[in-house]
């Protein structure tokens, strides 16, 4: 918003996004296999969960470990309202988002005033609480057996259950794109600036009129809304729900997506999620390897974070800038420093590192 964009860097970014959008629209034409399409759909769902987690975890700096539980709240709120109350599944997906936001608001009450490890503790305890609730209310939720035969979405004259998941693919893709646009808009707005400010220096932010509790609440509620909708879509698509969504292995898988991708970028966690879903689901389909995949994903995370402690997203601006640079220097014979091309927001990760080692 305030940043002065390096023209070259921005235009290569716009190009990249355009190409990816078109590629995303064309995938089903080339990918006819329904299992492969299924992997795309699941990866889009994880992409939404990971990218929206970045809002509360990366931008607002809240150690929110309830994000996957908010996803679960979306799953069950949508599943239950669609199945037991007979609410239209499209509307039920929205209810999933609203329910997840409501859950986030409840968690926010204690969390906005706590710090660091206490936030982890409270949000983690909340996740366990929701899971126990789902398991205990087995006559509604199916308990550990899960919920089955959830009604699915429909459109006039179109049956989602035929067509080798083509319809689901586009709904998932549409949700992913919409979520990404909303999240990017949010983090570049004044609100986004205020939560980054709070993350950077809480006392200083308050001294400049930024209300801590309110901004944290908003960040949690917004971030939960998108993951709740994703949960709603997930249950409508799979037509079953199980308390496995609350498992620690799910949490760690998605957390590794966020960290490998790199926080405070939205795109980083999103693409890491797409990529890691294919790897982990692919591995899961190999016999006897269902559990080994978590180890492999963990290993991948360690390796990536060893070389890019701020995640892969932190490497991308530098690479793009270098390319733009080489072109420019070929044209004009002058090389500009990589850093000069980067905008402040692209450099966030780097600046953060610098501030810790900064000399007063």
């Amino acid at each position, binding site marked *: 918003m*305030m*940043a*002065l964009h390096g023209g070259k860097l921005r235009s290569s970014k716009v190009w990249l996004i355009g190409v990816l959008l078109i590629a995303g629209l064309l995938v089903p034409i080339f990918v006819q296999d329904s299992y492969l399409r299924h992997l795309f759909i699941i990866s889009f769902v994880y992409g939404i969960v990971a990218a929206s987690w970045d809002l509360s975890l990366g931008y607002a700096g809240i150690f929110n470990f309830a994000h996957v539980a908010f996803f679960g709240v979306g799953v069950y709120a949508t599943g239950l309202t669609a199945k037991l109350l007979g609410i239209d599944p499209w509307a039920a997906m929205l209810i999933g988002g609203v329910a997840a936001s409501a859950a986030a608001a409840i968690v926010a009450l204690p969390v906005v005033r706590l710090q660091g490890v206490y936030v982890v503790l409270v949000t983690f305890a909340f996740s366990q609480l929701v899971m126990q609730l789902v398991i205990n209310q087995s006559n509604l939720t199916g308990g550990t057996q899960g919920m089955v035969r959830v009604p699915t979405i429909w459109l006039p004259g179109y049956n989602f259950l035929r067509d080798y998941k083509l319809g689901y693919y586009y709904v998932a893709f549409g949700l992913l794109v919409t979520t990404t646009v909303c999240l990017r808009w949010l983090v570049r707005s*004044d609100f986004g*600036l*205020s939560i*980054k*400010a709070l*993350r*950077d*220096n809480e*006392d*200083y*932010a*308050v*001294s*400049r*009129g*930024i*209300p*801590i509790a309110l901004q944290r609440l908003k960040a949690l509620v917004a971030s939960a809304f998108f993951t709740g909708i994703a949960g709603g879509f997930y249950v409508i698509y799979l037509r079953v729900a199980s308390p496995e969504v609350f498992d620690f292995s799910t949490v760690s898988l998605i957390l590794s997506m966020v960290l490998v991708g790199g926080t*405070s970028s939205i795109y980083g966690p999103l693409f890491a999620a797409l990529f890691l879903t294919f790897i982990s689901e692919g591995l899961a389909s190999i016999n006897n390897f269902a559990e080994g995949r978590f180890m492999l994903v963990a290993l991948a995370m360690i390796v990536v974070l060893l070389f890019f402690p701020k995640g892969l997203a932190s490497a991308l601006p530098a690479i793009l800038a270098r390319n733009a640079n080489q072109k420019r220097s070929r044209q004009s014979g002058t090389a500009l420093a990589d850093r000069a091309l980067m*905008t*402040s927001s692209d*450099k*966030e*990760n*780097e*600046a*953060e590192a*610098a*501030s810790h080692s*900064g000399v*007063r």
Partner: protein
Amino acid sequence: MVEPNDDKPLLEMRQVTRRFGALLALDNVSFSVRKSEIFGIAGPNGSGKSTLFNVITGIPFPPSEGEILLAGKPIHRLPPHQISRAGILRTFQKDAEFATLSARENVYASAVYCGRMTSTEAKEAADQALDDVSLKAERRAKAASDLSVFERKQLMIASAIAGRPKVLLLDEPAAGLTKPEVTGLSDLIFTVHRRGITVVLIEHVLPLLLNVSERLMILNHGAIIASGSPAEVVRNPEVVEAYLGKREARL
């Protein structure tokens, strides 16, 4: 020097006390700051100067007892961000900035959230404030953490101006500056002052403090031991003993 509204204090402390367990960091402190003055505060380390700014702004804690009024209205029960918005902006003894935001974004955020401006107004106010402190245009898109020590002081003042304060509280702003930079800083303080902003200045660098302050107050062990014009205060024997005496070696 005598102005018609001199008798109406802008910022007033009434019997303000702050305890940390058994420690009395502020002991029944009462004083007032007049509109448009530069009010200096000095005292040995640990005498409660920063604690005073903390309880005035509520960041990070309010007073244990007593009242604080801004333009006659009590503010000590407001949430801290409301105190900032009411017109009291502070800086911190330890450098503070939004490290990952650009210098311009740092100032803009203050204009939006403290000055309550629209986006367009805030952009203008941010550029104006950065002009006022003469932060070089090409440095403004830099992340705050990439700025030099003096540039960060400029940024600190610019972000304060952009928040449209009535009172600016500066906590040892000269810390870490070279002599010529201290001169630059006193110019910055006068710039703020010319904008009609009342300044309360805590400072260890005595030449700066004596040069800019119209009135001076000395704290020791959380209590006021002297106040008045700088000339009067530095002659006060109690001050010489409590404050200057200990620093003789350095002076």
